[in-house]
């Protein structure tokens, strides 16, 4: 942490207050500018959608937020703490969880084990007890298993509890991935195209889970999605990116009427 990041890390943020603010972030890969001078904020308890055409820099934005990419310029303020770069595991320990566009589950492990991995940060028993799998190690394991079972119940995936996730159909894999992120009890949940490649029924299920997550756990959600119907229904506010630049920001209704957004999506005659 450099001198700039001395500001206080806040544990409690009231709903409606700014949870995460992105200020003038620019991300370059050599000569390619993936993100140019983008600023927006995410308030606690809201569903914030990030949309834009392919290659607009949406996923790069998420990667910047959870520390995979380090932007060349700009700052990110999370819970009152300003930073310019961060390691992913630190982001995880501060309550940022995420799912991936192309499912990034642990394919050789069962659904249960995958979600249990999400609890890793909450587990504290020293190595010694794990040699015996008794005493504190087992108590901790059971305690977290109870929590994981609640998530399994919440996501309605009881029947695939002990199935290796590599064998599951795509829609269920996406659901397990959401479960794994929820197991971390995140403050901020980043969802990268949670509904890509799903049929209507699966999409509706996923929408229900996202809204329930917000209501039940009070999780703040940043969502990238291409299905405009879903985005407009689910999100409280939308930020629109095109070619790495922010072209619109506001409620779904405002964004829908924005001429630049319409041009970006429908194309414009030159």
């Amino acid at each position, binding site marked *: 942490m450099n001198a700039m990041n001395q500001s206080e890390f806040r544990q409690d943020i009231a709903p409606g207050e700014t949870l995460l603010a992105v200020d003038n972030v620019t991300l370059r890969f050599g000569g390619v500018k993936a993100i140019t001078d983008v600023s927006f904020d995410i308030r606690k308890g809201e569903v914030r959608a990030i949309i834009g055409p392919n290659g607009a820099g949406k996923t790069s934005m998420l990667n910047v937020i*959870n520390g*995979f990419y380090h932007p060349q310029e700009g700052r990110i303020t999370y819970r009152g703490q300003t930073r310019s770069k961060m*390691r*992913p*595991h630190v*982001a*995880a*320990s501060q309550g940022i*969880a*995420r799912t*991936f566009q192309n499912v*990034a*589950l*642990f*394919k*050789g*492990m069962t659904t249960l*084990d995958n979600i*249990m*991995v*999400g609890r*890793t*940060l909450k*587990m504290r*028993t020293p*190595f010694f007890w*794990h*040699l*015996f*799998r008794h005493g504190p*190690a*087992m108590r*901790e*394991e*059971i305690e977290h*298993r*109870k929590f994981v*079972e609640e998530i399994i119940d919440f996501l309605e995936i009881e029947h695939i509890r002990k199935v290796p996730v590599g064998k599951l159909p795509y829609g269920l894999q996406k659901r397990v991935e959401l479960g*794994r992120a929820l197991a*971390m009890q995140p403050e901020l949940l980043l969802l990268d195209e949670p509904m890509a490649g799903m049929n209507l029924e699966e999409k509706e299920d996923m929408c229900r889970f996202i809204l329930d997550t917000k209501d039940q756990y009070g999780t703040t959600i940043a969502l990238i999605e291409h299905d405009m119907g879903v985005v407009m229904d689910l999100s409280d506010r939308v930020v629109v990116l095109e070619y790495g630049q922010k072209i619109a920001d506001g409620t779904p209704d405002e964004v829908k009427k924005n001429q630049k957004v319409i041009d970006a999506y429908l194309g414009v005659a030159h």
Partner: protein
Amino acid sequence: MFYREAGQYKKTYSADMAVFPILQDRIGIGLILATAAIIIPIFGSNFFISTVMIPFLVFSLAAMGLNIVTGYTGLISLGTGAFMGVGAFACYKLTTYFPNVNIIIWILASGVFSAAIGALFGLPSLRIKGFYLAVATLAAQFFLEWCFVRVPWLFNYNASGAIEVPQRTLFGVAITGANATPTTRYLVLLGIVVLMTWVASNILHGRIGRTFMAVRDMDIAAELMGIRLLPAKLTAFAMSSFYCGVAGACMMFLWYGGGEASDAFNINQSFNILFMVIIGGLGSLIGCFFGAALLNIVPIILKFGLPAMGLPLAGATAEHINHLFVGSLIIFFLIVEPHGLARLWQITKQKLRTWPFPY
């Protein structure tokens, strides 16, 4: 029909999380342990115990070590032989300096030295993966092998350059050295292997095992779950080398009874154990035993079994046939069942569960 979990209800999470949740499995393990601990020592001939069972147990332990790092964590290591050697030499030095401490303690403690060396050579694993990591561990193999031959302090300045295993006793019975009978050595080894398998199973079923597998399956996502990759990978290397080190110490003290390290812990040994892990099944503890059994027993059958049946096989021919067989076996498994014998065992269990119905 007989192997079925129907009617065995799990009422607690701890019952559901047991390593052997099915009653028949627990009975099976009990029978195997009873056979190994009682029937084999009583009825097994010295020849059977010293040429089949002791090598089998030593190799199982070494394969378990390699499986932790390669099968569970997904990091290829070709330094197994060298890490075994570190264990053997550490045990030798420890027991020469402190002859009064029980040898079993030193055999287990020698793993600590091996773990430290293993973690050191595991450092490159943060940056490099796959074949490149294999090459980096190969460096460990060559460097340590060089040390075993060139650093005379390690073998107490013997003129022969070999480890000379001294006689050590447990409750007044010789368990190492020339006077130890194969049966006592076998029983000591069996105790060590059972203990270490139990511990490995405990670790791999808990948080640490899940961390290893998460790193293996998708390291980016693992990092995002708050798993720090370097400590996770180094733990895997250290734990793996610990097992290899103990296996090496057992090999020298309970099997060979002394010998030249350059023969026992060379690159061939590393590959041999890698083959056991691949054929047995990556990421499976029982696979280690299957792999060790197959690659250990097949040569013995070729060497002693065929001549006994009247097929004359000279020593060299048996050796060549052995190589041919092992080679084709590896190709066969890589094509047909990449998950090895352990997966075949799983499929068999699944079939048994539903038998006589198709599903």
